[in-house]
Each structure stands twice: as C-alpha cells, then as structure tokens.
C-alpha cells in the first residue's frame, strides 16, 4: 500500500510540474475596424487617413490609391483622451471624424498582460461625411478578427461633396 502511494505520488508530482511557458498566444492589439463608402455606386479613388495633429513622417495611418467602392481599415484609439480624431482625405476632399469612447484596461492573460477595451459612445464629423453607423460599439483585441464584411463603424461619405 505504501509503495503504491509513493509511486503514484511521484508520478502526479511530475505531471503537475509541467507548465506552459511564457508565450503569449492572444492578441493584445486593440484596433477599431472601419468601413468606408460613398453611396455604394461611386468609387473611392484614393483615401489618406491621419490622426488629428499627427502630421509627422510615419504618422499616416492609411494611404490607399486603389479605386474601390468600399474600403476597410483598422484604427488605434486614444489611450489618454475620451475621443479620437481622424483626418480623412477621400478623393482629395478633407474631412474630420471624432470618435467618442470610454476606455477600460482589461486583463488578457498572465503572459499577454493588459489591453484596452473601448465602448464607442458617439461621433462628431464635418460636412463631407454623410453619416456614421455603429455596427459593434465594443472595440477590443478580438475586433481585428472580424470577418471582411463586418466592422465596428460604417462611414458614408457625402456623395454630393465627394
């Protein structure tokens, strides 16, 4: 009986001593997914996107010169402010979009650490943008896994202006 105890004890001890290392297998990049279109018929010939007051070298988030009816990109949101501003230059016309949001730092795992989670609460935009529709107000590290026909926000440019 005692021999059995010792053997089984050692076996289980060895089994439980194994661990899964230090690697992070989950995403910690929190990016809002946005889709752009004019009216579904008129193409967007080029699209350049920068953060507001971010005009330095390497600050351009999007520089797309391919003409398509819709475009889809991911955007980082501010960590220190409750709104994030983007300058959108579509077909040569400049607009500004502000996304209001709340932020909470959320724990992912002990190996990956923390990542920001946002809730989109509203928008402010200039006249070249017709409307902005929210399809998913939660922006978290899983957002970038959305399917190609899904997004957080849909931005419709004003066809009369663009």
């Amino acid at each position, binding site marked *: 009986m005692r021999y059995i105890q010792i053997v089984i004890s050692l076996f289980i001890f060895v089994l*439980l001593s194994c661990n899964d290392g230090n690697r992070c297998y989950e995403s910690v*990049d929190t990016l809002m997914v946005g889709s752009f279109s004019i009216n579904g018929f008129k193409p967007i010939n080029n699209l350049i996107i920068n953060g507001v007051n*971010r005009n330095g070298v390497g600050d351009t988030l999007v520089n797309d010169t391919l003409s398509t009816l819709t475009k889809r990109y991911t955007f980082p949101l501010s960590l220190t402010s409750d709104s994030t501003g983007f300058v959108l230059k579509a077909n040569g016309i400049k607009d500004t979009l502000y996304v209001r949001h709340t932020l909470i730092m959320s724990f992912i795992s002990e190996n990956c650490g*923390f990542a*920001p989670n946002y809730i989109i609460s509203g928008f402010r935009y200039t006249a070249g943008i017709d409307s902005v529709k929210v399809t998913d107000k939660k922006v978290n590290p899983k957002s970038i896994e959305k399917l190609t026909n899904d997004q957080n926000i849909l931005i419709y440019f004003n066809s009369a202006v663009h």
Partner: protein
Amino acid sequence: MTKIFSSILILLFINSLQGFSQKKAEVWRYEGPRFGIDLSRFLMPYMQKGKRSAWEVQADVPYKGNWFPTFEFGMQSFNDQRDGFHYKNNGTYARLGVDMNIVKFESLKDHDFVFIGARYGYSLFNQQTDGISYTNYWGALNSSIPSRTMNAHWAELVFGMKGELFSNFFLGWTLRAKFPLAVTSDPNIKPYIIPGIGKTSNGVPFDFTVGIYYRFPIFRTKTLPKVIKMGGNTHPGEVDPNDPNNPRNSGNSQYGSGSMRNGGQ
C-alpha cells in the same frame, strides 16, 4: 545429576516466563481527530512562476469508521512582476467537506485508506495591479488598478490516500478537481490566481496536495468498520455475499469453497 536437575528447573522457569509474556495484550482500534499540514504548499514557490507563499492546515474526524468530515484552512500570497504589469494577490480560504473510505480495512490495526470526497470552498482575498503599461499610435498609457477585496466560492472533488507511517502519524496525498461557482466580477481584471483554487485560466483547475498528519487516539473500539457498499440493494433472487444466511458463507455449503489459484480445476 544436580546439574541436570537445575538445568531442567531453569528451562521450566524460562518456559513459564515465555508463557507469561505471550499472554496476549488486548488489540484495540484507536481512532480520533487527525490534524496535519499540507507540505505541497511549501513547495509551490519552487514549482511555479511568481513569488508565492502559502500554508494550509487540515483536520478530519472519523465518523462511523469510513466517513471523515474534513476542514481545511489556508493562506496564499502571490506577487507576479511581468512585462507590462505587476499583480499582487493575497488572501485566506477554508474548505469544508467529507471523505469516504472506499477500501476494506484489513485488521483493527490497519488505518490505511483510499478515499473519494467532496468539498465546498470559500476564499476572501485582495488583488491589486500596478505598473500597467500599454503603447499604441497615440502614445503610452501607464495606469494601475487599486486594491480590491473579492471572494470566491467553489466545489471540489477529491481522490486520495492516507497511510499510517508509524503509530498515529500519517502521510497522505490528494488529487483535486475544482469547480469555481462564483467569483466577484471585476471589469478590469478577473483574478487569475485565487487562494484555495489556484489558477483560474483553466476551466477546471486541478491541484495536488501532500500532507502529514497526526491522529489523537482518543477513541478505541474493537469493531472493524464495514466496507461501504457502492452497488446499492441486491436484486430479488440475487445472493448477497455479506449476508450471513448466504449458503456461500456457511461451512456446509452446497456450492463448496476454495481458491482459483490452481487454475480453478
């Protein structure tokens, strides 16, 4: 002649002494509350990541021979410095439950047993995270989450053994599957270590404990506990092997008796 006579007398005297010493002492079965400590808690800092310290004391009391109502109490602190955050967690926990012996005691002196058991656990703990850092296109964020008191309830299934190493001293181990029932929710950070449960990243955390125990031999009995029947009632017409009226258990059985060691011929 005198030598022969004196030798016979000596032999008779020795023989009578042996007879006196062979007078059998009464055999009792001693039982009583058993107290112990979980040694595996002291090994945890060397086996897992992060700075840990923990201790756990355990106690059980025999009830009707095969049942052991059990109480366990412990403390754990955890301090984990990682890239991008520093997590601290400490608290106390208690478990209440019962173990059931599933093997037959072979004699009044035999106290080794194998058991299955269940526990209800409760943990009260604090967690705090500081040094949280994150950087993206817009810059860097450094923040912290202040200390918060939380609690957790869980259930455990236990399998283990306890063996008497020498009189009243026991060594035992358990393998435990833990089922978290309720944990205080926190929008920032779900506790990834809970005192008494362990890591919560797995759906059903498993744990292994090794303990040493001392039994206070307060009660004594001459009755050997009966094996707990696991199979339920016998069916109509079925012969119960423990039934004294069972013809297999009587000496003049029509079924006969014997062992199969010689091939069952």
